[in-house]
């Protein structure tokens, strides 16, 4: 039904019609008409963040945890520029979010007006698509199209810039219709290529599934199909950081995460395999290590919805463009119809080789003395929370890698981390978004003290909306990953990689009215974690850990998968000049 209304009302109406229940935002001059409409309705909850970057990360957390697009509303100029980091983060990790920005009135655009910025110009390279809407009548169509573009194909962030006069003016509202957009990415894979892959599955001697965030983005159905295929073939499976949870950590065929800080067995198996089945991953440089030594003996199949991912870094022998869920369904169908064949004896031998690598026990550590090891803190966190309805966010750095190594994920959409962009300050606002999507769940942000401080202002948001997010800070008073690289690469010259003048986190929590817990003794750790879980409200958990612990195992920059370092003793002079220029 079409109706006359103002542009501002159209925004709220379109959000309601798109099924949006939560908006993360921050008001300002150029979005006041929209805020006025938000004030006069009850369908959409608005979460007032304390900084626009927090709004975007919260929307990302909400999107990852619920599978629905996240929505942000911010003002022009600084509101929009503060959103840029979150947009880039969402673009790199393929997270569907819709960001609405106010803009100065159309007749003032280009005049360097107060709080004017070229928002579509600034955000063009960090959005999947963006629009500046200059006529109110175009607004409904663009709003609905934005949700289509954000979620269709490879998901990503979109932005709509709405000048203030467009918000005030009357126009005709159109409800959403089935998309007539020319943007309709291909979801079905090529059957010939799928049959070729099935034939390779039937004969492979040393196969491996290498899965990524594409499985999660394809929806829970894709994870179910993946589990069926993995368990039916009996092939080992590893996953990127972004894909954790698509196959259960307790699953029989799970080998753990791969990559720079991935598990030894996963990386060795990637190096020695004869058939690599990449499902929704993109051969990121954290995964491949040295490219000319990457899995030299394998045939590589690559399933990706984005044609530009294929052959970008690693040449695919069997490229399949399509949605992971659709392609997995077809693979299973063809494989079953051809008699469910695998080379069982060879695969059994392959598994015995993998068991040898597993026996190295690359994540082993010893909790001795009176200082908490970060690995121990996460192992205890895992033990005490794994039976809960649990969602984990992280910031970026050593704690993030340890969390990926020591926590287990049984289901998709339970793990929110900044993979591609590596955004410190992501985790805390993301946990707020997750908690909004799952009010009853236990939401924990595993953080480092330095990352956490980057968006600490959001403690106000958590308090205001009574979101009981648990901030589990592994406090080593260092920028741990920077410090680790300085130790390995820069002659132990620790340039600006320590955290001085840290706040008293317990007092900081209390200043916001939240609960603070300090724990420094391994003997107190379990009780303290239980206290955190049982507290009904936001908790800042300051866990003082070993200051100089390094994150292992590690593939040094410029090295191959089979050149992993397992511990401190092996680190001397391992990264050559060529490797040291890499990030």
């Amino acid at each position: 039904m079409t109706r006359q209304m103002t542009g501002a009302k159209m925004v709220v109406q379109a959000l309601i019609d798109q099924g949006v229940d939560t908006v993360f935002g921050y008001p300002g001059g150029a979005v006041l008409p929209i805020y006025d409409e938000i004030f006069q309705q009850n369908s959409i909850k608005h979460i007032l963040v304390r900084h626009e970057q927090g709004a975007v990360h919260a929307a990302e957390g909400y999107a990852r945890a619920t599978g629905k697009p996240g929505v942000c509303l911010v003002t022009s100029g600084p509101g929009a520029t503060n959103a840029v980091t979150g947009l880039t983060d969402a673009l790199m990790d393929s997270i569907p979010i819709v960001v609405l920005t106010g803009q100065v009135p159309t007749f003032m655009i280009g005049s360097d007006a107060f709080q004017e910025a070229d928002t579509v110009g600034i955000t063009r390279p960090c959005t999947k698509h963006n629009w500046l809407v200059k006529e109110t009548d175009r607004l409904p169509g663009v709003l609905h199209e934005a949700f289509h573009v954000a979620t269709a194909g490879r998901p990503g962030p979109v932005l709509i810039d709405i000048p203030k006069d467009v918000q005030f003016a009357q126009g005709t509202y159109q409800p959403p219709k089935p998309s007539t957009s020319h943007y309709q990415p291909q979801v079905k894979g090529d059957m010939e290529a799928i049959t070729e892959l099935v034939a390779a599955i039937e004969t492979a001697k040393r196969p491996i599934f290498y899965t990524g965030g594409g499985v999660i983005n394809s929806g829970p159905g894709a994870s179910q199909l993946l589990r069926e295929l993995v368990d039916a073939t009996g092939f080992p499976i590893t996953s990127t950081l972004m894909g954790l949870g698509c196959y259960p950590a307790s699953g029989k065929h799970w080998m753990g995460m791969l990559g720079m800080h991935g598990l030894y067995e996963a990386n060795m198996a990637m190096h020695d395999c004869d058939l690599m089945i990449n499902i929704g991953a993109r051969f990121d440089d954290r995964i491949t290590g040295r490219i000319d030594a990457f899995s030299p003996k394998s045939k590589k199949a690559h399933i990706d919805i984005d044609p530009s991912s294929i052959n970008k870094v690693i040449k695919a022998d069997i490229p399949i463009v399509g949605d992971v869920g659709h392609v997995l369904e077809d693979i299973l169908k063809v494989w079953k119809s051809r008699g469910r064949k695998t080379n069982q004896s060879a695969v059994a031998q392959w598994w015995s080789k993998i068991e040898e690598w597993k026996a190295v026990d690359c994540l082993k550590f010893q909790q001795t003395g009176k200082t908490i090891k970060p690995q121990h803190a996460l192992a205890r966190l895992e033990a005490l929370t794994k039976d809960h309805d649990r969602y984990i966010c992280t910031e970026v750095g050593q704690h993030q890698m340890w969390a990926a190594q020591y926590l287990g994920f049984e289901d998709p959409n339970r793990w929110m981390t900044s993979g591609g962009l590596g955004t410190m300050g992501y985790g805390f606002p993301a946990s707020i978004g997750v908690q909004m999507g799952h009010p009853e769940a236990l939401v924990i942000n595993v953080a480092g003290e330095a990352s956490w401080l980057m968006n600490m202002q959001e403690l106000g948001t958590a308090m205001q909306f009574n979101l009981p997010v648990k901030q589990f800070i592994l406090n080593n008073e260092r920028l741990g990953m920077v410090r680790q690289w300085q130790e390995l690469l820069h002659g132990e010259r620790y340039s600006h990689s320590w955290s001085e003048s840290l706040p008293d986190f317990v007092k900081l929590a209390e200043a916001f009215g939240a609960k603070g817990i300090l724990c420094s003794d391994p003997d107190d750790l379990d009780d303290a974690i239980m206290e955190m879980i049982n507290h009904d409200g936001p908790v800042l958990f300051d866990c003082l850990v070993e200051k100089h612990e390094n994150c292992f195992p590690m593939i040094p920059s410029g090295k191959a998968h089979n050149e992993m370092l397992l511990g401190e003793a092996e680190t001397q002079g391992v990264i050559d000049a060529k490797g040291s220029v890499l990030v």
Partner: protein
Amino acid sequence: MSALKIKKGSTSHSAYNLRPTFSDVEERHTLAVLVENEPGVLARVIGLFSGRGYNIESLTVAEVDHTGHLSRITIVTVGTPQVIEQIKAQLGRIVSVHEVHDLTVEGPSVERELAMFKVAGQGDKRVEALRLADIFRANVVDSTLESFVFEITGAPDKIDAFADLMRPLGLVEVARTGVAALPRGD
């Protein structure tokens, strides 16, 4: 004259510099990109080339279908086969892009460019310039007692050849449109 020389993106600090090129031989490809005729669409295409460190040798753009709201961008680019494939895939994922055609591989095509040359001189040089212009079927579109402006249409190498000949004869200024191209036949 290449219309735009966009600097290679700064890749020296990323793992990408260890990327093996599947073939080292650089090829010149002419791409025809049909895009939604909307504000910012050219910036999206050019931003892709600069942001990812691809080359643009020549670029032309104009609306070609008013009712369908479509513009045609013709880009001449240089890269290894892998890079060319990446460019096409990256162009294809821009939401405003409807179609990407690689005219260099999709069968025979015809390429034309229009250029204007201002040549100043007197005496024999002036006569020689006029004579050569005639051979190249260039038209005189402006004339003074001391200068001509020639208009010439042709494939880029013909225009290059004409420029080489005009240079010793008093070439003052050049304007080139960049390449427009269509596939041959139907």
